[in-house]
């Protein structure tokens, strides 16, 4: 299993809220191979962002705890890491790009100051070397006038430029794993196209692995090698990208793909999944999707389905049970 970079096993998280406790993710299981881009797709409340924050040890300590499972990064269990160990990991081995580039940059520091931060912490470099490294990485992500930009503040840049700065920040220490949490959701389509192209190219050049979190199936189709589909805190399906689009097994994935306007005749009624995404406190026994599923039967309401696999294609649905119903 040396080619596995990140492996998450049976991960469960508990949040304390004003009303009691909820489990935003339950029994999450997946792995990420070296050099691969793994997509994590889900809607709001699916637990996709919680999963990525857990990997980086960024969950709020007071109100959340890991109740089960493990996370292995390069064959080392990291859920028990101390703050200090996590700090060494973050920015160095694992970097993250967030959705909102404005709020993830500190407005009172110049771009150069923000970019030199991880280098100061993780690499021994002289000031000159640092500046050169920063200008280099800014040029790599296609920022014009890199030498001047380092003295400018975040608010002087456009949304697309800021996201480029975020990407360069993530790339500085040449991490092995790059986690992207909806990196293009806040951007316009033409800018999104630029950024996606850049990320593909950067990934190839640096030989990184990527965990790509998004709700947009189109972006997944463009970027990912394999996909994990999450719904209401659970993984419902894992498959290779073409396999997922050609032969989705879970009714939720099927429904999502069928409801895309491009998969429906113009002006016709779109296929749609009935009902609403459940709130975390509404999830009880059985399959979380059962109340919206057109194929649900008694067993679905009674018992949470395990993962059934067909080669590399996993799905958590009773319909996939080998001996049928």
């Amino acid at each position: 299993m040396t080619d596995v970079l990140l492996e998450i096993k049976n991960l469960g998280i508990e949040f304390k809220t004003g009303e009691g406790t909820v489990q935003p993710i339950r029994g999450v299981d997946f792995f990420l191979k070296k050099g691969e881009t793994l997509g994590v797709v889900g809607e709001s409340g699916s637990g996709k962002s919680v999963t990525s924050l857990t990997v980086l040890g960024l969950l709020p300590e007071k109100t959340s705890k890991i109740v089960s499972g493990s996370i292995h990064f390069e064959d080392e269990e990291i859920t028990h890491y101390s703050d200090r160990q996590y700090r060494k990991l973050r920015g160095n081995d694992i970097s993250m790009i967030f959705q909102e580039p404005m709020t993830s940059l500190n407005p009172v520091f110049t771009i150069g100051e923000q970019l030199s931060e991880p280098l100061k912490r993780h690499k021994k470099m002289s000031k000159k070397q640092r500046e050169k490294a920063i200008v280099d990485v800014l040029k790599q992500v296609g920022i014009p006038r890199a030498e001047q930009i380092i003295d400018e503040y975040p608010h002087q840049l456009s949304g697309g430029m800021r996201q480029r700065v975020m990407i360069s920040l993530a790339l500085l220490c040449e991490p092995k794993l790059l986690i992207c949490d909806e990196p293009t959701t806040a951007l316009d389509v033409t800018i999104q196209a630029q950024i996606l192209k850049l990320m593909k190219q950067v990934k190839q050049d640096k030989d990184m692995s990527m965990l790509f979190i998004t709700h947009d199936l189109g972006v997944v189709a463009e970027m990912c090698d394999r996909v994990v589909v999450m719904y209401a805190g659970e993984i419902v399906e894992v498959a290779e990208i073409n396999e997922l689009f050609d032969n989705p097994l879970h009714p939720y994935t099927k429904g999502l793909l069928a409801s895309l306007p491009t998969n429906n005749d113009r002006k016709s009624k779109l296929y749609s999944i009935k009902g609403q995404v459940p709130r975390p406190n509404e999830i009880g026994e059985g399959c979380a999707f059962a109340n919206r599923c057109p194929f649900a039967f008694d067993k679905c309401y009674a018992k949470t389905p395990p993962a059934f696999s067909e080669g590399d294609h996993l799905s958590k649905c009773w319909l996939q049970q080998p001996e049928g119903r």
Partner: protein
Amino acid sequence: MEDNNLVEIKNLKKYYEISRGLFKSKLIVKAVDDISFSIRTGETFALVGESGCGKSTTGKTLLRLTDATAGEVKYKGENILSLPYDKVRSLRSELQMVFQDPYASLNPKMTIKQILMEPLRVHNKFTPEERMQKIVDILEIVGLSKAHLNRYPSEFSGGQRQRIGIARAVILNPDFIVADEPVSALDVSVQSQVINLLLRLQKEFGLTYLFISHDLSVVEHMTDRVAVMYLGKIVETAATEELFADPKHPYTQALISAVPVSHPSEERERIVLTGDVPNPANPPSGCSFHTRCPFAMDICKTIEPKLKQVGNDHIASCHLYTEHKEEKEDAIIHS
């Protein structure tokens, strides 16, 4: 054709003045800069473009939710922008709006009943019993039930709230609805439900929509004609199918090609634009798109192209489709 137009927008302008302090001249942002289009009865007309292009401002201005700087908006032959405000208020029963953010567009302190009662009360429609019946009916039409009447918006999910927002807009039986990004804040699995609802209501009530969106796949699916906006101007207008099959303006071409693929094996020839959208307070000279246009010529930097017929019911403003010489002379004469 002319008689068929429900709404006609002529030379609409909306400029914002930004004061930069006591001794500096005011900055003028041309959010909507001299646009004209007309919406035919019963159709869905789309305004597309990226953030800051002025599409939402257009929607708000033509409903007179903000004051226009110049131009006219003719609704059934009457100019809404020059009517006295009281007249506009009573006209609002025919002109409605659906908002983007279902969390911000419902008053958190009002129950669903109060929210839906308000339009009926304000326009003094029906007797009290009839009103109640109307509210219950409309709730069922949008897929909610009477059990929800005494609940507050915070007890609903985004999709349900958007249904309430839509119910509020259609309860008065309007003729025209401006839908400003009605599905972009919703979860993927709920988006299709709301799109279906809008399509169904259009059939049932004979509605005319102005559909403002940046999501091209939704626009392609549900609209009849499209106008593409860039930096406050319309750069291309065409029937939806024609526009997606044969976009003329380089910006439209880039925009359509930038939409993510719908299947991983799909190969798309993509025009990736360089650079960012310019600052609307300081737009480029000539054609405002020339700084990012892959086909930019010398003339584009100096002379603003006019909208020209480029096909059947298809107009675009680009020098690629104009006789340059004529245009140049024309410009010299005018200047």
